[in-house]
């Protein structure tokens, strides 16, 4: 389990680690309350405000720091929902087979055919945009991807000796899934989790950018949304100072998850070592 063979994976892990630490220590690190009117409006970076201020005079650095928390929480929570739900459905379908399998896969096919963002926009607009609803919606829309993957892996595992043996000793379906299937699927699930997290960061930012973020919360997408929709300021240098930090914060976190995923592939799954990116 050496990560040393993959420099990309290490870079990814470091990036995510930094974001996680910033998110965890947000109250200590942020110089100002992100909602407080801490200074004059639209200041360029200075010693008092390292990244400047927005149109209301709120400190941008503090907003970015608190934004890390909400972005990471949404990403991880959404990925958890998707992976848990997808694994449950995929494993059940794969183990039971027959009519259940056919029916479930039919649903998954339909769900996969739906383009994600339009549906997400529809649901978020109608359900009201809070952090919880956005998380749930992203999770609930992503599970079919996991379900299909888990099902195909389950089908190939089902015929193996250790599953047969567990069945022969009278192990029930939930038991087999929990004790044998999930550990065997572990590497695949971790890789999927990382990939979905990257996607969730982007989706959350996209939604917030379209104006469907939690208006009371603090998120990177929301900063971009406010900046882009602020009248009369478009494309001035003050606007650039406002937009750049949030944009790069999103990019770096997505990049972190992506690189981590690339690094994890060969480490976690020896089968991919031959063909996967090194």
């Amino acid at each position, binding site marked *: 389990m050496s990560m040393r063979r993959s420099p*990309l994976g290490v870079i990814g892990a470091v990036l995510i680690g930094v974001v996680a630490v910033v998110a965890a220590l947000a109250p200590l690190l942020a110089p100002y309350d992100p909602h407080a009117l801490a200074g004059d409006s639209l200041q360029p970076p200075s010693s008092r405000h390292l990244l400047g201020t927005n149109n209301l005079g709120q400190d941008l650095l503090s907003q970015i720091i608190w934004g890390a928390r909400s972005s990471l929480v949404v990403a991880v929570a959404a990925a958890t929902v998707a992976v848990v739900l997808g694994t449950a459905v995929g494993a059940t379908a794969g183990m039971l087979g027959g009519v259940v399998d056919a029916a479930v896969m039919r649903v998954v096919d339909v769900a996969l*055919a*739906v*383009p994600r963002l*339009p549906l997400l*926009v529809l649901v978020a607009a109608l359900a009201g945009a809070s952090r919880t609803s956005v998380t749930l919606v992203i999770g609930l829309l992503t599970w079919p991807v996991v379900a299909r993957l888990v099902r195909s892996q389950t089908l190939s595992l089902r015929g193996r000796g250790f599953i047969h043996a567990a069945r022969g000793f009278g192990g029930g379906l939930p038991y087999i899934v929990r004790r044998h299937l999930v550990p065997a699927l572990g590497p695949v699930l971790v890789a999927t989790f990382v990939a979905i997290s990257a996607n969730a960061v982007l989706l959350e930012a996209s939604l917030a950018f379209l*104006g469907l973020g939690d208006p009371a919360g603090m998120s990177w997408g929301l900063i971009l949304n406010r900046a882009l929709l602020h009248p009369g300021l478009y494309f001035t240098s003050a606007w650039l100072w406002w*937009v750049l930090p949030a944009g790069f914060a*999103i990019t770096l976190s*997505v990049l972190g998850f992506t690189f981590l995923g690339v690094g994890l592939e060969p480490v976690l799954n020896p089968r991919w070592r031959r063909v996967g990116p090194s």
Partner: protein
Amino acid sequence: MVTVFALVTLNFLLPRAMPGDPVSALVDAGGPARVQDDALRAELAEYYGLDRPLAVQYGQYLGDLVRGELGTSIRYNVPVASLVLARLPWTLLLISAGMAIAVLIGWIGGVHSGWRRGRGVDRGLLVFFLTLKAFPVFFVGSLALVVFAVKLGWFPLAGTRTPFAEDEALLSTIADVLHHLALPALVLALDFAASQYLVMRAGMVSELGADYLVLGRAKGLRERQLKFRYAARNALLPAVTLLALHMGFAVTHSILVETVFAYQGLGRLLFEAVAFRDYPTLQACFLVLTLVVVSANFLADALYRRLDPRVAA
């Protein structure tokens, strides 16, 4: 077919299952009627048919859909069908232009990268495309606007056509459309090229050790010929299949790109409809966008059959 029906039904049920209703949005937005006026609400609900039982609404919805009627926009008070039809060509134009550029960049990059797996070129391209993929498309779009439209002034700031253009000649109209299209299409393409690159690269890598390449090399074929005529042709198969899946992403990203560039397509319409709780318009946008994706999937399937004789047999 089942997929289409499920989408149609989902499209009907979803808005009605959610809190908030268009009448309150309309009344609230009206200003003076902000104080809840029950009589007015009831009248409006009746006018738009929102007071009838759900089953009746559903039956009517299906019937209308078959006749091509998508209802009346609550915000603009014009038939939604005409709104959507006016916007659809722009979105299709944007997506197809973006996809074409993306496929070109992504596939060429993927072929080169996969062929030289593990070498400097491959690593460089891989990191480059992965990084590209991590940039949110609306961020890239805004930056592109600042640099190319504001600072350099090469491209127009927003929109699909120059408003009130006096020159109506065909050639200058085409030039104007392309001029407005270039930047959004390029931004869409950059984002999309990365996915194409990854698929093509993986395809090439899996062909690397194949027997026919060994044979070809033994026959003394040129490296170029082996790379493009042999390996790339086989690597194309998974790329084409995944192209369909990526159509979904392209539609997704066209919403964001259209919002940034104020490009008057379906995505922008959807974005505006959301803000006004304009049910019929929202539904129509969602329906048409999903239908675009489903038909793209269908198309890719057909194309796959033509490309791979084994499936056709």
